[in-house]
């Protein structure tokens, strides 16, 4: 007997009888006997719930939580309490993809709202229902551009998150797409280098804003240069900054993509997060993934359905734009609730708070004289400093004191020796920042 299996011996007997076989083994009679596994599995014995609790407690105790000044693609954000309460509702958590719209209006409603909010933040005309994460969203944007232009090369700024670039490279490799990096100067994407590299082979230019190093880029003339070349302008963005920063639409981008982790999703050791993609009317039908649209039922009532599904893999099969089958629905809901409850003013306040905390942190760190500014970097919530002390030792020391310090940039590129990238979000308090700085001072 096992708590997830309802079949009593009587049930089994009756059902076997109805089927017309004598035993459960007979149900597998057509399978060649020699492939049946009689292995005594090297698996743990079934644990009771209490044993599971103890086991997971022990396991989780082998992780350490820190007060974090590390960003680099995953950020310590405030998660409002109502999110967990709402996303754990069984109607949201345990339901399937909304292929039967009549009983999935719940899911379809929040997906419509997600699409609306992403369009509002990015300034774009259409958004899909979400994709796996920011990196794969960028790869999908790359595919859109390749298909739309029928060209085979993309230019990617070296100021894009290296982990995103790694994913782009993998997908490009298996589709014989060429990737070339645009150089950076002082943590800004070089316009000169862009101009040098733009040509008729280029399907798209991919940039990030704020970029990986935290810089808020101006990208002046990028729009004209890219569009004159008949390429697509793809911008990977942090959506939490868009309440305050110039939008991809205002920059003239064709596709906005990125990760919604900063919209209230915890670190989660890297996942689940949620990717988003938004574009202009022109490229609507090239967008991969699910899209929810509004319509009416036979009685004239408003309702929502998955639409433009003909593009999706399950109908076009090998002609599909991509092979995405699912979105990250529940994580999209997570961010929708976040954006709704923070609302117009909250989204602005949170962004400003992160901005202020980061600038205060930079000021204080520079005042210790253990760091100096590298170049004139205009940043949002992450910034690069040059360390005058042994960075590895400093970071180890701070770790021992319970602080996760900034990213040692030589991990990204050996030429960034002694450079460190700090981050402060809205979650950091003045006390935490002051204490962190004090420890740096006494190191």
């Amino acid at each position, binding site marked *: 007997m096992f708590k997830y299996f309802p079949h009593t011996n009587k049930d089994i007997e009756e059902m076997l009888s109805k089927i017309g076989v004598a035993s459960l083994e007979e149900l597998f009679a057509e399978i060649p006997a020699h492939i049946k596994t009689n292995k005594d599995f090297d698996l743990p014995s079934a644990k009771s719930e209490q044993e599971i609790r103890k086991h997971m407690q022990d396991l989780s105790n082998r992780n350490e939580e820190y007060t974090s000044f590390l960003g680099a693609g995953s950020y310590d954000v405030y998660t409002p309490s109502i999110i967990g309460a709402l996303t754990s509702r069984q109607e949201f958590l345990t339901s399937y993809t909304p292929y039967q719209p009549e009983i999935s209006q719940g899911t379809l409603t929040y997906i419509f709202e997600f699409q609306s909010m992403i369009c509002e933040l990015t300034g774009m005309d259409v958004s899909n229902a979400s994709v796996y994460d920011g990196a794969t969203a960028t790869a999908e944007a790359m595919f859109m551009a390749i298909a739309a232009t029928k060209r085979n090369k993309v230019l990617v700024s070296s100021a894009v998150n290296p982990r995103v670039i790694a994913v782009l490279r993998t997908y490009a490799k298996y589709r014989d797409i060429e990737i070339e990096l645009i150089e950076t100067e002082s943590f800004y994407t070089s316009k000169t280098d862009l101009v040098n590299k733009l040509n008729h082979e280029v399907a798209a230019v991919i940039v990030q804003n704020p970029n990986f190093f935290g810089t808020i880029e101006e990208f002046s003339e990028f729009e004209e240069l890219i569009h004159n070349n008949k390429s697509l302008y793809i911008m990977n963005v942090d959506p939490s900054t868009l309440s305050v920063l110039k939008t991809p639409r205002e920059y003239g981008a064709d596709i906005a993509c990125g990760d919604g982790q900063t919209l209230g999703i915890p670190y989660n050791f890297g996942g689940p997060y949620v990717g988003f993609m938004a574009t202009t009317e022109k490229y609507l*039908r090239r967008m991969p993934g699910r899209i929810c649209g509004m319509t009416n039922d036979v009685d004239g009532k408003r309702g929502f359905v998955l639409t433009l*599904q*003909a*593009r999706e893999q399950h*109908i*076009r099969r090998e*002609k599909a734009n991509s092979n995405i089958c699912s979105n990250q629905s529940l994580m999209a809901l997570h961010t929708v609730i976040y954006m709704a409850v923070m609302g117009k003013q909250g989204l602005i306040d949170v962004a400003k708070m992160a901005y202020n905390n980061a600038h205060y942190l930079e000021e204080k760190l520079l005042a210790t004289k253990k760091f100096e500014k590298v170049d004139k970097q205009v940043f949002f919530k992450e910034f690069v400093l040059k360390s005058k002390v042994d960075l590895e030792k400093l970071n180890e020391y701070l770790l021992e004191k319970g602080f996760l310090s900034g990213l040692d940039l030589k991990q990204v590129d050996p030429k960034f020796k002694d450079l460190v990238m700090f981050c402060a979000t809205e979650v950091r308090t003045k006390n935490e920042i002051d204490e962190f700085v004090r420890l740096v001072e006494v190191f």
Partner: protein
Amino acid sequence: MSKILENLKYAASHEWVRVEDGFAYIGITDYAQDSLGSIVYIEVGEVGDEVAQGEEFGAVESVKAASDLLSPVSGEIVEVNENVLDNTEDVNGDPYGSWLIKVKMSDESELDNLLDPKQYEESLD
């Protein structure tokens, strides 16, 4: 029973051709529109684009399916039927009266590679 017109040539991929003074008017057959269901979107090349026999010149989408449009002849697109592109349901209602593109043929002998009405009808079985 799929409707098939006598004065047209057909491609096995369910496009029809009507020839008039060296120009080819191209559309999709009754069988095609019936299989697709209500057509919601049609995309074709632009005036000036080159097309080749058997090669893709656009796509047609319904709620449940999407299909490439393959050109039955080679040549240059000289006109696109904007009216039908805006009213895609016309293709369902009157497939043979709703041409999609008009092509100036580069090689009229290619028409011999196509199916005549009887051959097309047989191919549907």
